[in-house]
């Protein structure tokens, strides 16, 4: 139980792959203009991270050290192709919205980072949990960013209007800037700021 807790819960907060380790930023920012693609993307990355960790961990004794990167790339790419075909079949409009970012899961640094740092030296079950935890940590940030961007940018959540019509009649306006790419960066910056103010041990020293 404690092992489970350590591997799955820690990446949500203390070792969050996005805000603490700064990995996998690219897709994190690009798909968060609305909540729905962010949820789909988070789920896809979690599945790929967990399964690729599991597979590489099972294969780890048979992979020669020199070609491990290419083996990892092949395993990840195969999983991503499966996800891509699955999304095209069952959620076509979301997969159109995500466009190239589904493919970019292959080069998502979280996955390669976890494979290198964890799966190559741990057993299958632990690696699976570790991948699950890191995928969830990534999804958590994705959902937080998307929540604020969709709420303030379009006044909706998952496509349903949340801000009442009377607000608009009273002169409330959606903040169009929130939907534009640069705001994603600023929202993530603010999340990091809040997190590091609450946990001073994570702060970096600027003078280095």
């Amino acid at each position, binding site marked *: 139980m404690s092992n489970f807790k350590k591997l799955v819960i820690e990446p949500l907060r203390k070792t969050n792959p996005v805000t603490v380790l700064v990995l996998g930023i690219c897709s994190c920012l690009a798909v968060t203009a609305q909540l729905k693609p962010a949820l789909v993307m988070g789920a896809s990355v979690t599945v790929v991270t967990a399964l690729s960790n599991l597979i590489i961990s099972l294969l780890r004794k048979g992979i020669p050290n020199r070609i491990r990167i290419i083996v990892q790339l092949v395993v990840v790419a195969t999983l991503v*192709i499966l996800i891509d075909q699955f999304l095209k079949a069952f959620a076509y409009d979301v997969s159109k919205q995500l466009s190239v970012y589904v493919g*970019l899961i292959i*080069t998502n640094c979280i996955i*390669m980072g976890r494979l290198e740092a964890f799966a190559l030296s741990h057993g299958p079950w632990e690696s699976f949990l570790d991948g699950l935890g890191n995928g969830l940590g990534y999804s958590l940030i994705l959902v937080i960013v998307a929540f604020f961007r969709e709420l303030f940018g379009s006044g909706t959540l998952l496509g349903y209007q949340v801000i009442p019509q009377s607000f608009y009649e009273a002169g409330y306006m959606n903040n169009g800037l929130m939907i534009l790419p*640069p705001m994603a960066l600023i929202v993530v910056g603010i999340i*990091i700021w809040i997190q590091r*103010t609450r946990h001073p041990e994570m702060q*970096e020293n600027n003078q280095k």
Partner: protein
Amino acid sequence: MELFNLFVKSVFVDNMIFAYFLGMCSYLAVSKTVKTSAGLGLAVTFVLVVTVPVNYLVNKYLLAPGALAWISPKLATVDLSFLTYIIFIAIIAAIVQLLEMIIETFTPSLYSALGIFLPLIAVNCAILGCSLFMQERGFGNVGEAAVFGLGSGIGWLVAITAIAAIREKLRYSKIPKGLQGVGISFIITGLMGIAFMAFMGIKL
């Protein structure tokens, strides 16, 4: 003229960093000094100029629906586009390896400048992303694909060099404790992105 238009567009308007957030990880990790950032930027540009046209040809003659028709008319109905990701990433990894060897043999000075960055580039999302955008937009010929690669690379170079220059100066400014390091880099990149949006209306 059209090529020039495409070039300007891919450098400023469709900037890899500010509009699509591609290659963010190395962008944040390496941009501590201007010199190393410029080195990495050059290496990325170099790899993009080679890989985008190669992937364009592979896509046109192997992967796209009906692309195999040049072998025999019987194959005209074959659609291999589901193999795109795995083929592109393999080609990129191979080209990066090849470039490393070529540069090492013929121009050792360039190799020592780019050397450490080249292996990193195979897993840089800007490279794969650029190839995937190329496929999505369906360019007319190899020239356009090459210009798109060049423009995207230079856009990335401009962005990483600019943030590195700003971060060098930031070392002497007073930033709230929780924001130091990565936090402030994110916010500055956002502000630079807003500035780059000014280029949006340009049409040559």
